[in-house]
């Protein structure tokens, strides 16, 4: 691998590391991170395909509340390096991505813990009215997140493809790699469970089952589900408005349920 490639790889990995904590532009998602890594390493097509495959597996990896998703950034960049430079199969890349995501999560937990130090430094700068100081504390946290992906990625890129690494990868028993691939098929449920718990509404679970049943017995795609979901949400809100109108009508004692319905202004909805 050329020096230019190593430098570009460092930059791409740093961007994905920053994106993984920011969760804004989504450079850390496999579909983007693997594509960019593939471009740098001179095999965009493999990067795109690996990215698409990993993305399907990672659809449910999301940061909600204080909980953290498995780390897509390190998993995507490093598995793309091992597949492209180390000539591993896409299947091996997927199997490797899973433990890498767990390792990346440990690293980000570590960084998020040491960033507490910058939090206290920021307090000190606030006392001094030093806005630039607070901005630098913010930047420092972000840079640590960039390095926690960029450094391991470059280190692995320098040894990937060598006999030692290939032998090490090939010496992993098949039961482990195939087992991880199998787990990759259902590891997403943790993410789904986190989001469902967050919405935490027993009475709304009927919509979850509706989505499940439609998916099992039809060929509707996800855009279709978005549309069906929006329509269900519309009727659900209508229903809530009706209930409230009836309650209010009952409280004032006057009017009927039917009359109250007409007072609802749909334009208030959105």
């Amino acid at each position, binding site marked *: 691998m050329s020096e230019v490639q190593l430098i570009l790889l460092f930059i791409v990995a740093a961007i994905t590391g*920053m994106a993984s904590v920011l*969760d*804004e*532009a989504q450079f850390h*998602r496999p*579909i*983007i991170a693997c*594509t960019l890594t593939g471009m740098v390493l001179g095999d965009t097509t493999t990067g795109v395909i690996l*990215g698409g495959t990993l993305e*399907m597996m990672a*659809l*449910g990896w999301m940061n909600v*509340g204080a*909980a*953290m998703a498995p780390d897509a950034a390190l998993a995507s960049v490093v598995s793309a390096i091992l597949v492209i430079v180390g000539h591993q199969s896409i299947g091996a890349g997927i199997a490797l991505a899973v*433990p890498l995501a*767990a390792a990346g*999560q440990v690293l980000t937990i570590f960084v998020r813990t040491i960033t507490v130090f*910058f*939090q206290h430094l920021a307090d000190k700068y*606030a*006392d001094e*009215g030093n*806005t630039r100081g*607070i901005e630098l504390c913010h930047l*420092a*946290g*972000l840079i640590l997140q960039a390095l926690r992906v960029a450094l391991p990625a470059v280190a692995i890129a320098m040894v990937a493809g060598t006999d030692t690494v290939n032998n090490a990868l090939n010496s992993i028993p098949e039961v*482990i790699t195939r*087992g*991880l691939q*199998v*787990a990759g*098929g*259902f*590891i*997403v*449920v*943790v993410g*789904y*469970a986190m*989001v*469902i*718990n967050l*919405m935490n509404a027993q009475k*709304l679970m009927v919509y979850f*089952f509706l*989505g499940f*049943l*439609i*998916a*099992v017995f039809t060929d509707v795609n*996800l855009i279709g*589900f978005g549309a069906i*979901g929006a329509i269900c*949400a*519309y009727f659900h*809100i209508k229903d*809530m408005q009706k209930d*409230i109108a009836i309650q209010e009508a009952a409280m004032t004692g006057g009017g009927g349920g039917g009359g109250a319905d007409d007072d609802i202004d749909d334009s208030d909805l959105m």
Partner: protein
Amino acid sequence: MEEKKVTKNDLFWTFIRSNFLLGSFNFERMQSIGFCVSMIPILKRIYKGDELKAALKRHLEFFNTQPFVAAAIMGIIGAMEEKRANGADISPATLSGVKVGLIGPLAGVGDPIFWGTIRPVLAALGAGIALTGSLIGPLIFFVAFNAIRLATHWYGVQYGYSKGTQLVENIGGNEMHFLTEGASVLGLLVMGALVAKWTSVNMPLVISEYDNAMGEHVVTTLQTIFDSLMPSIVPLLMTFACMKLLKAGMNPLLVIIGLFALGIIGYAIGLFA
């Protein structure tokens, strides 16, 4: 006294900085530095000296919400700080109260819409195309998601600032409640679909084998039984098990490691393939 006024330029820089809200996320006060840094253009415009120090301090308080909807909170707090700088009777306690009060409800709307619906839908769309090796897949996901995201940030800051405290009164009202439940309905329906379609479990464990009357060899595996009863029932049960474990306070990382172990052991004993 001259009236202190936040400029369009200040709001623009708050919008830019809001894109880096989580940069220094830490386990003590989470997005607090990011929030403070996003507010700096506004705070520097309206406060000087000790007042600025106090304002910086109060925006280094705990903050954590869905990052895109946070922009609206920045706009609202900006409008309130501006009023306070001009002598309105808004105490620091009120400001904190509004901020903390908005975190939960806005995350309640933002999480199901952005993480639960828009991102998985666009990512699955993009990934489907990417599997063919086409660059259009990643591009569609990236462009569409970021267009929606940037619009949310931009209008969040602008709308939050222009409506200011007016919006806060609505948060406790019915509309916010409608929006949260509506977002949850949408999110849950999509989650149901994702559990069914975007998971893969194959259980090739052979239950029975025989040659039928036509002389064909018929193999019944665990998977064919599940498929004839209710396909995807296994991922559904796994989802429920994870929900239970997470509710009981188990660390998500531990749940994930547990599923790895299940995959490896399951493959080893021939339950999964």
